[in-house]
């Protein structure tokens, strides 16, 4: 089964990457290519929606890690939305991305992003 990647731009510098299928040794280079510079230049928040992702290996984790490093280098952030249990297990075993928040649904993530934006506005006003 191949990897499905849908990238969409959302307001306020949010880029959503919806992943489906398998993120493994054979497909991870496709994700690397989709997110390679300058793809993330105008993004402050990168969201990986993994609800439809069925399989991830260390090669796939590596791609997520690399993307997160690119975001951090530009003072941006990465969030993950909806992990299936077998995907969560892989993240848990290698304790990958301890500083990346994982949300179970859109509402939970939207609350978090609202909070971040309010905080940024407050800091801008003081």
């Amino acid at each position, binding site marked *: 089964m191949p990897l499905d990647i849908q990238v969409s731009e959302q307001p306020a510098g949010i880029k959503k990457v919806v992943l489906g299928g398998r993120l493994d040794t054979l497909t991870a280079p496709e994700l690397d290519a989709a997110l390679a510079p300058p793809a993330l230049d105008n993004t402050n928040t990168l969201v990986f929606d993994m609800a439809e992702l069925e399989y991830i290996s260390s090669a796939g984790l590596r791609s997520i890690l690399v993307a997160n490093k690119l975001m951090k280098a530009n003072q941006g952030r*990465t969030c993950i939305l909806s992990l299936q249990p077998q995907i969560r297990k892989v993240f848990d*075993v290698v304790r990958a991305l301890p500083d990346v928040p994982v949300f179970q649904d859109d509402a939970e993530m939207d609350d978090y992003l609202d909070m971040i934006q309010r905080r940024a506005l407050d800091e801008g006003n003081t």
Partner: protein
Amino acid sequence: MTLFDTIRLENCHASLLAANTVIERYCSRYELDAATRQQLLLILEETLVNIINHGFDDSGKHYIELSIYHEPGNVVLRFKDDGRPFDPARQPMPTLGLPSQDAPVGGLGVYLMQQLAKTIRYQRSGKYNILTLLCSTRTRVP
């Protein structure tokens, strides 16, 4: 009844597709549950890709023999290759849980393999590595 599937794989990433097919077919035939199937596929990929990426000193063509079979309570994956001696069970644990800017981007595959396999047996036999990984299964052994 065949209890033993064996396939000879070239040392290139495309071999993963053929290897996955062998695992899928085996899991269907013995009606192994989804969790066991997922675990086998992951152990397979991490082990095979590690051998392909790091096992050989030259850039020539090599073959890796993969076998899958049952032992009571376990499904067993066995890899035989003529690469340099390498015992994954004896590799040091990577530093985990580092913030992303400090976390290394590689080295997680062998650790994942160590954690997912119930037992890893390694043996060097002549010029061959023989690596046997046990994966526990709740499905009744045929």
